[in-house]
């Protein structure tokens, strides 16, 4: 469980994170989504005590990060894959990291096996590819078998097989009841991995909801109707909150009415339909809509936390 309260970070004039309040809950994968410079990484750095908040606070499992007597058992973090001395071997890096908590060589070998680094464990990290660096970073994050995992762009530089592996791993870790927070600018990836999404824009939390809600709320769901009597249908559908746009002569894109209603109207008026499809907006569209104009979105109250 991660709880941020009015978390704010300013670098001189620039506000990187602006009064962010959110809660990351255990048992699901939470995605931190936002364009570059939105404050995702800074937020993550404040969670693990690397950056000091200008104001506000963030707690992990009820305590400030530095208050934990065994931080690596509480939180495992991958903040950037190159937070490792390039002159040291992967094995020795993990061994030194674990030694602080009394974690021995047996566990180090476990995470090396888990992340598939056996072949390169004895090599110096300086020669690692980005993907291998990511795997080592994930190994380091898992070293203490932590309750909470924080991963900044974990699939950056991974090959397709690695991406699948990370996706499965994160879901598995969440299914065990752990708190998993990851950031990504890849919306499609978020849609496949995350259960819940917190969208950042210019340092502010502009949305905080389950993936399905983000998609439903931000993107327009429309119905595609194809009919030889398209003009007739358009006239019948006309209403104040219904938008009808014509894609071609016989095809209409209708927003504001469900497919069932359209079908009903068509049937009761004896109109022939060739196609009747609900088009759901993608997470990507939702995200672009949300971040396109932050000003619009933080005046309008975005459903904060959907209570289930």
């Amino acid at each position, binding site marked *: 469980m991660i709880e941020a309260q009015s978390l704010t970070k300013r670098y001189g004039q620039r506000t990187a994170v602006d009064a962010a309040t959110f809660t990351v809950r255990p048992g699901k994968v939470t995605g931190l989504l936002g364009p570059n410079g939105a404050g995702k990484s800074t937020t993550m750095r404040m969670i693990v005590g690397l950056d000091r908040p200008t104001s506000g606070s963030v707690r992990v499992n009820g305590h400030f990060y530095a208050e934990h007597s065994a931080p690596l058992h509480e939180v495992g973090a991958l903040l950037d894959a190159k937070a490792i001395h390039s002159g040291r071997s992967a094995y020795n890096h993990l061994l030194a990291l674990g030694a602080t908590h009394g974690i021995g060589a047996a566990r180090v070998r476990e995470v090396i096996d888990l992340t598939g680094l056996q072949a390169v464990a004895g090599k110096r990290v300086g020669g690692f590819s980005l993907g291998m660096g990511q795997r080592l970073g994930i190994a380091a994050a898992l070293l203490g078998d932590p309750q909470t995992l924080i991963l900044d762009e974990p699939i950056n530089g991974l090959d397709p097989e690695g991406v699948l592996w990370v996706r499965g791993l994160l879901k598995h870790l969440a299914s065990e009841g*752990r708190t998993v927070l990851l950031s990504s600018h890849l919306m499609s990836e978020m849609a496949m991995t995350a259960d819940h999404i917190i969208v950042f824009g210019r340092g502010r939390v502009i949305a905080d909801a389950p993936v399905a809600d983000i998609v439903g709320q931000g993107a327009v769901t429309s119905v595609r109707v194809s009919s030889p009597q398209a003009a007739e249908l358009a006239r019948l559908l006309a209403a104040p909150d219904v938008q009808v746009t014509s894609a071609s002569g016989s095809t209409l894109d209708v927003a504001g009415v469900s497919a069932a209603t359209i079908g009903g109207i068509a049937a009761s008026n004896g109109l022939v339909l060739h196609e009747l499809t609900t088009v759901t907006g993608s997470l990507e569209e939702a995200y672009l809509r949300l971040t396109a104009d932050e000003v619009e979105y933080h005046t309008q109250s975005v459903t904060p936390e959907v209570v289930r």
Partner: protein
Amino acid sequence: MSTLAQPEVARATHLDVTGRGLSPAGILRSEWIKLRSLRSTWWSFSIIVLIQVGIAVIFALTTSPMTTEPTTQQVTQAAVSISTLGVLFSQLVIAVLGVLVISGEYSTGQIRSSFMAVPNRLPVLAAKALVFAVATFVVALVAIVVSYLVTMPILAGNGVDAAPLEPGLWLSFLGAAGYLVFIGLISLGIGAALRSTAGGIAASLGLLLVVPTIFQLIPAEWAGVVASWLPGTAGQSLYYTGSTFEPWQALLVMLGWVAVTLVPAAVLMKRRDA
């Protein structure tokens, strides 16, 4: 949703972590693993041994034989100065290594991993300083004693036959090794405060090589006094008799230098974003 069934705070981990966590012994072990797992450490320490022994042998071979029967004190002094002559050079290696030990963590980003494991940060600096000090002390002492043992037979041929049990001899050896430790710690403090390899090396070598020269060039009396208090000058009183300070005074001066570099470094480390 099914996620509701998940317990809120139950520990979902497999590793038995009861009673485990951060400990001073663990942090020391971690720093020892870090120090021994880098090539720069082994290179620097090897160079120190080679320089010490090499210089001692060259000087022992080129000293002229004593014409009169030397006093015990003269013999001890000759043995000390030849065995510790290399310190003037190996201090530069130790200064560079002292900076690298911490600046290498900043330049590679390793420091973030270190601080995430030990979020209070200061134990990292303390353990690093302690491990580096002990390693340096051992290597320096070995280098000096080997220099002594190798040059003893050569000097004996020149009529300088230092008794190996002379206490003054061993105190000087300990003092010289201690001097290198202090130089290393001062450099570690500089490196930690500046967080940059290039800047740290420039500053610590500047303190050892450039600053004394500047003060010696100033013709005022106070400049000479200042010069005598600099670590590279005052520290030599730890192992050379007849210098400005008594060994115990030199020890205090060096401890003062370590404090004025490491304490601000610690304050900055605690305060700054990593």
